[in-house]
């Protein structure tokens, strides 16, 4: 198998981005470049703004009332806040996995093909192919292949989360956003998801928010540390965890606060 061509270092470019929930400012002038086909982790204590930033990458925060943003975010050179951009097509390019698994009350099969169906794809062959590819991609194929038409809600917690990953990658997005995908999972399921992230980065640009620093070390290439809405430090994961440049970063990763 050919090694894929090296990705752009500034595939996602966040430029002086600030974000407000009503009168409360949640993000302050964030500036970072997220490289293509690598795993970037956001770490930081609760309420530091890492999830807010993640949710801005596919404009999910639009759904919340009374918010506003400043600055800009570019994906592959194009502003996602450009009024010409249709939010719906933006979200088709950027898949998302949430902290709590949220399968639809439908069958496993229908859950996975949902992104295709809303895009108007109804060809049986394409859907069948997608289900198999996505479930294999999410390492769920062996467990689910005999019960594709059972309710997704009959699965275990870990399986549901991997199902949500399968759903997020079903329509082959360019970017996969993961918001603490393992926080509700047991260690075995967590290992499976982490192995999965390793596999997926060959194909997708992954941004993951995590509370678990071991997880960040295990599966990310770059790490950004956030504190009180500010990006404190952003560099290679190896560097952040072995030799952080900032005192706050060191305090956090050594467990002195947070």
């Amino acid at each position: 198998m050919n090694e894929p061509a090296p990705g752009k270092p500034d595939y996602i470019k966040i430029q002086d981005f600030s974000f407000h929930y009503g009168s409360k400012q949640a993000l302050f002038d964030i500036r970072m470049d997220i490289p293509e086909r690598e795993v970037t982790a956001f770490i930081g204590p609760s309420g530091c703004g890492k999830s807010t930033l993640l949710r801005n990458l596919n404009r999910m925060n639009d759904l919340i009332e009374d918010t506003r943003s400043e600055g800009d975010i570019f994906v592959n050179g194009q502003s996602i806040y450009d009024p010409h951009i249709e939010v719906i097509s933006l979200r088709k390019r950027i898949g998302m996995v949430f902290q709590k698994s949220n399968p639809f009350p439908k069958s496993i099969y229908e859950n996975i093909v949902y992104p295709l169906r809303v895009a108007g794809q109804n060809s049986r062959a394409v859907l069948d192919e997608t289900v198999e590819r996505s479930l294999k991609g999410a390492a769920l194929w062996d467990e689910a292949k005999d019960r594709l038409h059972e309710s997704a809600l009959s699965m275990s917690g870990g399986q549901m989360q991997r199902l949500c990953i399968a759903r997020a990658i079903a329509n082959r997005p360019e970017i996969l956003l993961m918001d603490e995908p393992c926080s509700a999972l047991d260690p075995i399921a967590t290992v499976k998801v982490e192995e999965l992230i390793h596999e997926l980065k060959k194909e997708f640009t992954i941004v993951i928010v995590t509370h678990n620093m071991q997880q960040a070390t295990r599966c990310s290439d770059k790490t950004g540390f956030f504190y009180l809405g500010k990006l404190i430090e952003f560099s290679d994961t190896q560097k952040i965890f072995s030799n952080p440049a900032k005192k706050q970063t060191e305090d956090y990763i050594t467990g002195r606060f947070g």
Partner: protein
Amino acid sequence: MATPLPSHATDRKRFETGVWTLWTDRLMTVVIKFGGAMVITAVFGIFLFILFQVFPLFLAARVTELKSVPLPDAKFTILGVDEWGAKPFLVKPDGKMLFVDFATGKESAVPVDFGDSAPHEITAAAINKREQKIAVGTADGKYALVSPDYKSVAVDGVPSVSASPSASAFKDIGVPGAKVLDIAYGDSGAQKLVVVLQEMDGKKSVSALQLKRKHSLLGKGADEIAGTFDLTALIPGRPDNILVPSTGDGVVATTEDGTVTYLGLDPEGKFQPLQSFRPFGDLGDARIAVADFLFGDVSLIFGAVGGENRVFSLFYPKGGSVRLFGQTHEFPKLACRPTYLVTTLRNKAFLIGGRNEASLRYATTEAIRWQADLPFTATNAVISGKYARILFLDDERRLHFFALDDPHPDSGWKALFGKIWYEGASEKKWEWQSTGGSDDFEPKYSLIPLIFGTMKGTLYAMIFAVPIALLAALYTSQFLDPRLRGIVKPTMEIMASLPSVVLGFLAAIYIAPLIERQIPSLLLVTVGLPIAAAAFGWFWSELPIQLRKFIRPGTEWLVFIPILLGLGWILWSLGPAFESVAFVTTDPGTGKKVADFRYWWPAVTGASFDQRNSLVVGFMMGFAVIPIIFTIAEDALSNVPGALKTASMACGASRWQTAMRIVVPTASAGIFSGLMIGLGRAVGETMIVVMATGNTPIMEWNIFSGMRTLSANIAVELPEAPHASTLYRTLFLGALLLFLLTFAINTLAEILRQHLREKYKTV
């Protein structure tokens, strides 16, 4: 630094639950259980009460013998009775009347003063029950009218009946000196008709005598002969029985071979043969054993020699313009040859029997109310005027008194739910008409038109309400700005609490006349607005995003509402122009061409157009139902977990796709509940339908005609229903049906709802 924890050994009480907490807990458990049990008991009690009220409708008649009285050895020609059944009489051949007193069991022969000393042998007699007059015919060709002149005085609730019979003088009738074999007497007050069947030298003849009362300024006036008729030539065959309706304007004669001839008195005072038919012509033995008019004199009951029993009624045959007799009912065959057939003045029941077989039957419903093998051979019978006693005379000259307990002879499964051939109707029908103009009216208690009306009203209301309520709920919960949602929802909830009498009043006084004039406008708006809304939606989605971005999602209505309102106004104003183009027809009154939907609709569809119609009801009842469906459905839609919506959006679904594919299925159980509660409200809704439907119990789906629902029927008729009457109990049956209908709907809804909830439950 830290305060030391108290020692466990010394302070055990920390872990004990307070006495009051336990006591309150126990008390509330008991109170709640008691309350629940009381609610169930109350509902069950109401159900039982209604059931108890309805139950007698389905009971058969009970007939029990009270006593029997032996009579002296003499030949009797007729058996008559007062309305209480307390003092029956028999007429002896010598002209004396024999009264039998029920209370004492004694008989007394009372001579009747015919004003004629010469003895006449009475050979035929007929009673006109309505006028309580007996026509008697003699062996020497004379007739007289006898009146028993009953007087009843109720003493402490027990009627005491006395009789002082009087009679008119014997007069000649028909063929002079010929023996009267049968006599019939009709009396409509103004005109009287006496018809006799006579025999002389083996030749039978039928003659009629018409009497008219001349009114003078003083006194009652006297009967004068208005005409004499020889009807023999008009009757084919040898007549053996003649009948005259109480209206005195016709004669029915049966002949020995089983032919019935119906003669009518035309306005010029001449008898015309109207019809001749053989009621049992299809049988081997077509001879008629007994025949009589049913109460009301529009139906004839026939008993065949072989025991068959049929009822023929006067009605306009399809396409005909003269009312003729046609078979309407067939009863089970009797085992023996019937020898007597008696009717009552109360209802459409009749008693037919022969030898020891007796059968009490109800003509309307073809029901056998009572049937028994008597321990004696009855030769004649009579039913008291109050339908409370049956008297039999047996071949050993004993008079048997039977108590008849049959409060609801006109009821039963068939009367309430079956298709029935009513008197005067040209086919079998389901019909509701509980009261009529006269005593001999045949009540029609079919609940089918009411059930139909209930379904029709509900259907039209739901057709109007469901799309509006559900789409409004979907829009409010998924697309509308949350701040506005906080205003819209409570407003709708206030609408739900509007008294329905106000809505009904509005519908009847304002909406109905408005709609009546503006049907074309309404049509334009109904068709135009949804199309315009859909078109606007498409247009909006095609607009470049630079334009759309000025309107925040959730506030699109700011653009949308003014456009729709304007368009609605334009369409409404275009109505008259549309009418003048599309709905031109000939005014049946003037013969001119007019553009009027009210004439166009009946002319084109053949269905009627009423001002109080289903459209008005659907519209107004829809208003009552919309807030209920809206509120419950909106709650269900809003309660769909946000995580599902976010997940759907993150998959690249639009707001509409998210709403239709994720939110609606997940909320389906709740939406379904809303629909069912709305349906229950529509089924049971009363005031709107009472005021806006016209309350016509007709069975047609025509949107421009009215209806009568079960609930409206109860509201309209209960104040007029005598306590414990058939109508009263039938109304309770309507209530029971409503109860069961709502119960069935709710149970079904709950089962389906559980199923949906199981299917779409979220994590």
